């Protein structure tokens, strides 16, 4: 154990001699922990309810999280880079409202999809512009746009409703690609693979980590921090636009209260997935596992007709435990090292 040296016994601190591998080991163990929790919930559900192990039940449960999880993928990248977007649910409302407006004028399905995704992209770009060009903190900007985007929806719709979407538009949120594999699930799995590649296998992904760990150092290393962050905001807006298409298609109607409160569920997924809320660390696999955990948990408790409030308590507890665990681990380890030194 002589690889650890403590400079000052009064300030016990673990200083590794190698960089990288302990971090990687921790990330690995994190995802193993999530996987174990997911499996445990799955097994418990199977025992607890006779209706759980059924292809259609399992298919239905994926609708509880696919739309949110799609946004969580992009949100993970944004949070790793040290920023956050609280306006995602309001972007859904605005995208859905514009799609509904277009549908009233007889725009066909391809046009509606383009409007939904395009609106999301523009909203994301607007957030990105305010944060990177004007140098405003993202939490302040997106709290503002959260009210702004949904506010516009309320102005357009008031207490009204847009419905009468073309029949073919229903496919995105209600259709199945193959047997019980819904279009939403297939799209999410494909997107997850794409994001995994982007974050963990490209230099763009490495840059996101670099910026999140130290954006000043990243800037001096020649990274175009502003431009990369702008792109991440656009990406988050784009994914919100895609989620809006799916949700609007699934509901078959638009009201301004659509997707109310989803931003917190999306961020919960990201944090539960092991992404450091302060930026610099995290992975896509964890986020995907977290999405499945939340879906399995809410559906499992739903099958047992556990009231929603208990579910919220459960999610909250899980989140605190999951955030507290690594901190407690580190403290315990540091104390041990201090004793050894």
């Amino acid at each position, binding site marked *: 154990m002589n690889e650890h040296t403590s400079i000052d016994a009064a300030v016990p601190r673990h200083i590794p001699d190698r960089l990288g591998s302990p971090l990687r080991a921790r990330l690995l*163990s994190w995802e*193993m*922990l999530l996987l*174990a*929790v997911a*499996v*445990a*919930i799955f*097994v*418990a*559900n199977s*025992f*607890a*309810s006779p*209706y*759980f192990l*059924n292809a*259609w*039940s399992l298919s*239905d*449960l994926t*609708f*509880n999280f696919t739309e949110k999880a799609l946004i969580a993928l992009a949100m993970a990248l944004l949070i790793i880079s040290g920023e956050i977007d609280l306006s995602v649910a309001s972007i859904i409302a605005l995208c859905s409202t514009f799609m509904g407006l277009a549908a009233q004028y007889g725009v066909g399905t391809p046009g509606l999809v383009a409007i939904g995704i395009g609106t999301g992209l523009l909203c994301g770009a607007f957030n990105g512009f305010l944060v990177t060009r004007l140098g405003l903190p993202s939490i302040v900007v997106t709290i503002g746009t959260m009210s702004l985007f949904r506010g516009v929806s*309320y102005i357009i719709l008031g*207490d009204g*409703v847009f419905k009468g979407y073309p029949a073919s538009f*229903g496919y995105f*949120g*209600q259709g199945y690609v193959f047997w019980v594999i819904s279009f939403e699930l297939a799209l999410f799995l494909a997107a997850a693979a794409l994001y995994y590649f982007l974050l963990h296998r490209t230099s763009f992904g490495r840059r996101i980590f670099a910026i999140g760990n130290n954006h000043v150092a990243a800037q001096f290393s020649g990274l175009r921090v502003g431009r990369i962050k702008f792109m991440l905001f656009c990406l988050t807006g784009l994914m919100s636009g895609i989620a809006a298409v799916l*949700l609007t298609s*699934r*509901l*078959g*109607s638009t*009201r*301004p*209260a*659509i997707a*109310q*409160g*989803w931003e917190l569920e999306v961020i919960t997924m990201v944090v539960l997935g092991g992404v450091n809320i302060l930026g610099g660390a995290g992975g896509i696999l964890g986020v995907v596992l977290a999405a499945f955990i939340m879906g399995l948990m*809410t*559906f*499992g*408790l*739903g*099958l*047992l*007709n*556990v*009231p*929603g*409030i208990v*579910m*919220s308590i*459960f999610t909250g507890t899980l989140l605190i*435990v999951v955030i507290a*665990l690594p901190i407690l*681990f580190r403290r*315990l380890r540091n104390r041990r090292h201090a004793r050894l030194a």
Partner: protein
Amino acid sequence: MTRAKILGLGSALVAGLMLSTVSAAVAETRIAVVAKDIGNGFFVAAGKGAEEAAKEIGDTKIIFTGPTEPTAEGQIEVINALIAQQVNAIVISANDPDALVPALQKAKQRGITVVSFDSGVAPEGRDVQLDPSSIDLIGKTIIKLAADNMPDGKGKMAFLSGTATATNQNAWLAAAKEHYADFPGVEVVATVYGDDLFDKSYREAQGLISTHPDLVAISAPTTVGIVAAAQAVTDAGKIGKINVTGLALPSEMAAHIKSGASKSFAIWNPIDLGYSATMIANSLIKGTAKAEPGAEISIGRVGKITLDDNRSAAMSDPFTYDASNIDQFSSIF
């Protein structure tokens, strides 16, 4: 070692929690009552009515459930879980009449009877809709209650509603507008929305009190809004000057009736509503009634209803509560 231990502990905890809530044995007929949100006294009372109906029918199990937040998305998650359990009927009060239609149509395709009550679902998403009362009568009631207690029937009043998208509140406010001419002395100065959240409703009521100093009545057609308004009036020291009325649960308003912040309010009986909706669902499951226009369906001790062209019907008239009967009813619901 520690990692493995934590892993084991975590899994055991989760498994234990899930297993400790294993549902009871399955009864013959299972009717799910879905509230707009859990923790709303109105729906708890409706659930009691459903239990009463189940006892009367026999061999019936009531599943009372609902989302934490009053959202359509939350109710769809609940509906999906109920479809998976293959319940016989879903009795639901909708947070959104349209957004629930695809999910409820899926339920109907899988042989589940769907009855909506209170806040209805669009006709294509349900078999029968049971309105607690007729929209016209409620609309008239929420303005009449305010007018009756105004000096000489004259003065300014405001409405404090729930969410701007709530089906029923909007219908009642529209109906109230039709009756403005019946109360020429009454001037409606504002309609504000408290989103059925206490703190927001309270702030909206405070806003009304400060922007309209000569206001004499606030009418809130929602149980959250009326309590918040009564509290705001009390805190502003306006008891006796501003009368708070509307639709509310007797148990939640008892204190405000006694303090004088509210002279009277109205509500149909949510116990009867849950009871009647369950009776209708049962008749449809058993095939003793058909969900078609003109059909007459018995609702036990409450009487009977006749379905209109949209397969919807009204249960009964709203009932006024005041200092003379509040004690009797506040202990019931």
